């Protein structure tokens, strides 16, 4: 079972991502996925230690801790610095996205995206991230689907 952390302040965008990634079509090619939802940066920081995650998807424009600050935090952390990271943000914030990529995000998907676009991007990131990520953290039982 793979797990994906989705950091996004909109509950319906989270539900959308969940519906796409937890759908049987996605599971058929990539094994089952569990989506873990965080509604803000602090939520994400609370959830990060409960990882590992196979993929982190984050918005940029969020109250308090913005997505960029979260990306920097994730890239500095001991356990998640190699986790594939996808920015979902609207086209408007070009400068914000550039900064996100500079901080170490792996990909960017402009809102709105179709389920297919999300599926493909996540597939790509999950496959790419696979080798580096399959070592279980110390004390953690071997996971895998």
């Amino acid at each position: 079972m793979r797990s994906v952390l989705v950091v996004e302040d909109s509950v319906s965008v989270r539900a959308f991502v969940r519906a796409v990634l937890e759908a049987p079509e996605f599971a058929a090619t990539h094994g089952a996925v569990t989506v873990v939802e965080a509604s803000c940066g602090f939520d994400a920081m609370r959830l990060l230690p409960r990882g590992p995650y196979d993929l982190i998807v984050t918005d940029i424009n969020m109250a308090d801790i913005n997505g960029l600050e979260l990306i920097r935090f994730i890239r500095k952390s001991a356990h998640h610095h190699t986790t594939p990271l996808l920015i979902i943000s609207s086209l408007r914030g070009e400068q914000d996205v550039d900064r996100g990529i500079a901080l170490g995000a792996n990909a960017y998907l402009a809102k709105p995206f179709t389920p297919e676009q999300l599926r493909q991007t996540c597939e790509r990131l999950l496959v790419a991230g696979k080798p580096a990520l399959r070592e279980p953290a110390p004390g953690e039982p071997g996971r895998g689907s």
Partner: protein
Amino acid sequence: MAEGGGGRDSGGDKARDEFFSEAQELVDGLGRDLLALDKALKHGRTDAELVNDVFRGVHTLKGLSALFGVTRMAGLSHELEDVLDDLRLGRLELTAGLLDLLFRAVGLYSRVLSAEKGDGEEPSSEIEELLAALGQTSQRPTGGAGGAVAQYDLDPALFGVLTEYEEHRLRSNIQQGMSLFRIKVRFALATIDSALDELKASARPHGEIITYLPTGSGADVDTIELEILMAGRGTAEVLRGAITGPNVVIEEVRRRAAATSALPAAARASGAPAVTPAPEAPASTVASGHMPAEPPPGVVATPPARGSGEARVPDATSSGDAMAVAAPAHPTRGGTAARGAAGDMSLRSVSQTVRVDIRKLDLLMTIVGELAIVKTGITRLSERARSRAADPSKLAMELQRLNRDFDRHLAQMQGGILEVRMVPLGQVFDKLARVVRQISRELGKEVNLVVTGAETEIDKLIVEELSDPLMHMIRNAIDHAIEIRADRLRVGKPPIGTIALNAFQKGNHVVIEVEDDGAGMDPRVIAAAAVRRAIITAEEAADLSPREIFALVFMPGFTTRDVATDMSGRGVGLDVVKTNIAKLGGVVDIASEVGIGTKITITLPITLAIINVLLVEIAGRLFAVPLASVDEAILLDGSQVRAVDSREVLTVRGASLPICRLDRLFGLPSTRRAREYVVIAQVATRRLGFVVDEIVGQRDIVIKALGPSLKGVRGFVGATELGDQRVALVLDVAALVEEVLSPGEARFLPWQPAARRA
């Protein structure tokens, strides 16, 4: 994977439901924020944080609607976002005219959502119009004073994590001569939300928080260290006094000595719009002792600063263009704006969702736990009952105890679930405030809305059904009742009219009053109009009390005007309002005084879900009378019944009470009995006695709708199953009282046709 199972390429049904409820919430939030902005603007202020909230709301809406394929909404949001982005980044000035456009957008959003749910048509042409109007306001980005930031001793890496907006706020604050502070603080992750709220509250009076950076240092995973960048006008000392705590370190971000001269020049060059409201007292204690030519601190009115990091020559035309937008767009009557109001016909939300305080759910969980204990008791008992040694009397005693516990917890459960359905009336009042603003601007009347009791809670379903009737009443009040300024001054009233919206709980009911200080109604004028429209005859009119006459305004077809205005009187009359309220089990009362004003009082049950009823028997059939409207039940003393004007009236303790024989009303075979009872019902101030054969007892029931084929039958709110395979119809007491006591005709005798269908 069950949850995601619905995930076809639409993104899933559950996700779609979430979309509707989130979108509705965002739209409601926008309405609230705009009202707050409107209020601030009237005092010459603009709240940057609010503008940013509005931007974020629209931004999120745009993302959502595009994701879920609601293209109209996405298109509108896109254009709005451009305008709002200009606003929040200081390239455009907020004006009343611009606010008008934003308010219109909120109305259109609601209608697009309804249309998307299959309720009404999409307001395509209005959207096109609004888009065109918005298109004229957009500003092209202008250059800003980029050098100002460089003089602060800030970590260059900081700019890597600021969003464009945060960067703009940082520049804007610096240009206003604010000092910068670095606040280091450590929070426990578990309690960070409340701790942060506290910190924000103490920081707020001293300036603006630009961003929160998690430093990522600190070994343990349960705490988090934040570096907060804040701009303010005080000193580090003052901040240290305001923001306290064991893990708080506050220091001022120093300025580098050299570059100071760049700042005022840049600020001046970028040219604050001349029309900006009077500045507040400028910051007098800027730490460096350096006093720039202060641009007015009204935030959106600050010099246009483009957060690009490069110093470009400011575009001198930018503020001029902003002023062109600022020119008060006083809409003409019958123009596009008036259409906007007429088009915004419904305030009902498309959301079926109730957001619930987690504590309420915790309580329910606890009760479920208690019920589980009772269940264990029953299992144990049934096992014991199977063994021969069991003592029947002991078993019975224990069973009785369990039964009592079960009853108690069930009642708690019911109460708890009702609580969950409750939402504050403020939800609908907020929307009404929008309507008041819009209509009063269109009609050129000045109206203040004064709301009290917005926190009064009522069933979510009732709130939803209430918004349209209330909106209609408020429209009526502004259009018909509130006089124009000159007329008000002439009669010695304050120039600005007041509409008061009061809500309070009264027993099992919620009372909502809509009160205006307008012209009031003259009973003679109303009666004459009703006679002219053949609602009553002149003879009948002569017999009516003023109160009965006022009630005529709720009759179908009633109007005092021969020409309908844009606002009200376009076919939807107050009769619809009354019918809608009656459907909710409520009643409407009206009182008015010429020259003083009019007060409409709505009395509603708190909930529609579970009600306590009195079961009665009529001609061998069971009926339920909601106990909330029952005063008492007495034995009928035939000697005290008289006939007055073809109505039967009973004298009870010296007072006369009109009575109604339900068997006759419902067309049931009359079974004269030796003993009959009278159930005395009271709705608002009106009392009526229902004559029944037997009083069966009290019950808690769940009302079920009668179904589409019986929808037209009046007099019943629904039916209920009694648990022993029997079914009882639940009387619609408000409608019956209305029907029987309504002025003009004695209608309770010949009510046969409807009754037969029942």
